[in-house]
């Protein structure tokens, strides 16, 4: 078991090196970013302490794949397997607990660990046999996969849009529109295996164009119900709706380009940071979009000659 955790430590070290940075630089950057993000939650969100506990639990549940868990289960005794799963989850939530301690939320610290323990007992389903239908089957892409993983979020978002109409809250309507783009951007967090790029009989520029058209078309399909509601009930503010639609598309395209700009580099964290920065200050996209486009073309040229 000790060797297992030693290996995990080595893996983290190696992922920093793959990222192109030394661990002694990477660790402080992660700590600072974590502190900034946590602080911004406590500064801007109502009931932040409870939401923070919820985020930590979701983090413990979501991070780590079921294949990895299956591997441990196969090769370790059932007692050691349980210990590893619990230890892993405790370690994952520890940064959250430390921040809560710093904020003197002692009860929440206990809650974070207790929930992490219960999450360890939960069985994660890895293979769902039920095929969720999607309207994107003609051009299977990130949207097919992403939609199947996040379809329940759309129920919530469309629900919000319905409440926005019922309560006459335009801002909530816009928020639901923007939420769709956040969800869709997450579809571009995982790099494609080389094979799935190589199969395309097109050059890099055409490939990106093809991908961008799909992203715009399919995101439009998902936002269409909200756009319809907002334009019918808030026609006088249609210019604001359109502004957020265009910003959403730019944001989505930037994420798409970033995916191919950093193909094979596993930069989920980097994507997250750039995404937050562009959200706080959208004009940055004037620089980031062309930069990622050029970098993506250079990367894709290696596979799409």
């Amino acid at each position, binding site marked *: 078991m000790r060797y297992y955790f030693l290996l995990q430590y080595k893996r983290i070290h190696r992922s920093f090196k793959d990222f192109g940075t030394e661990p002694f630089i990477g660790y402080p950057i992660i700590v600072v970013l974590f502190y900034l993000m946590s602080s911004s939650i406590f500064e801007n969100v109502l009931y932040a302490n409870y939401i923070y506990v919820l985020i930590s639990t979701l983090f413990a549940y979501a991070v780590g794949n079921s294949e990895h868990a299956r591997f441990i289960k196969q090769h370790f005794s059932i007692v050691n397997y349980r210990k590893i799963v619990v230890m892993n989850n405790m370690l994952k939530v520890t940064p959250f607990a430390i921040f809560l301690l710093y904020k003197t939320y002692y009860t929440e610290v206990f809650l974070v660990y207790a929930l992490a323990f219960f999450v360890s007992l939960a069985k994660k389903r890895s*293979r769902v046999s039920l*095929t969720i239908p999607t309207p994107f*089957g003609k051009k*299977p892409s990130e949207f097919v996969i992403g939609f199947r*993983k996040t379809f329940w979020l759309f129920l919530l978002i469309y629900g919000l849009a319905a409440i926005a109409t019922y309560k006459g809250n335009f801002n909530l309507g816009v928020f639901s529109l923007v939420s769709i783009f956040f969800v869709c951007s997450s579809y571009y967090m995982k790099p494609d295996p080389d*094979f799935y790029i*190589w199969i395309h*009989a097109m050059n890099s520029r055409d490939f990106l164009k093809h991908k961008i058209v799909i992203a715009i078309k399919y995101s439009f399909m998902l936002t269409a119900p909200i756009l319809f509601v907002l334009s019918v009930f808030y026609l006088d503010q249609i210019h604001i709706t359109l502004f957020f639609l265009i910003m959403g598309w730019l944001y989505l395209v930037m994420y798409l380009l970033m995916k191919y700009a950093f193909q094979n580099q596993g930069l989920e964290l980097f994507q997250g940071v750039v995404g937050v920065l562009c959200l706080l200050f959208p004009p940055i996209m004037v620089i980031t979009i062309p930069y990622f486009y050029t970098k993506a073309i250079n990367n894709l040229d290696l596979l*799409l000659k």
Partner: protein
Amino acid sequence: MISIKSLHKYYVNNQVLKDINLKFNPGEIHGVVGENGAGKTTLFRSISGMENFKGTVEYTKGEIKNTMGFLPTDPYFLSKITGKEYLQLLCNARNVEVFDFEEKNIFDLPLHHYAETYSTGMKKKLALTGVLMQNNDIFILDEPFNGVDIYSNTIINQVLTKLKELNKIVILSSHIFSTLYETCDYLHYLKNGSIVKSVDKLQFKSIEEEMQASGIEVKIDKLDLK
């Protein structure tokens, strides 16, 4: 015709392919054999353009990549994508329009299930169906028979015969010599990154014997099984 001239491949300082020179003509099936780690997959990935290398791979009909079907040893499937969607993706990638996927489902695969839930053999068959539907001129099949049931092996054999009749170029690898005897016209023995022997059908036996005479008994003795 595909012509490989002086192909060398390095991973940092480690040379994995050394001075490979081969020619593949339309209507021929070529087998590449060798121990695990001999460099077969790297050679296939180099020919397909998925790896950078020193040397040249020339194809007389133009851009090799856009007319090549590549079957990896261990096909990877994106999560939450059905068999039909995988086939659709491969056809879209080559601008091939298919109206009825079920009709072309020669292995009777459950196309509406997620591909990631398929067994090893089913995954291989799905990946093979995909490259066959792309209307390629060149086929690189890395261990096409691996993990596939006997009935499907027979279908694959017949598919290969048909591809030969259609004047396609087929390059495959396999560790099962009986399948190589049945399907291949030429065999190339890859050892430690070099082609040490290339023979026609009449001399396949010589490669088989050479591969078997590599001190298997001594190796097993070293394991000291108790």
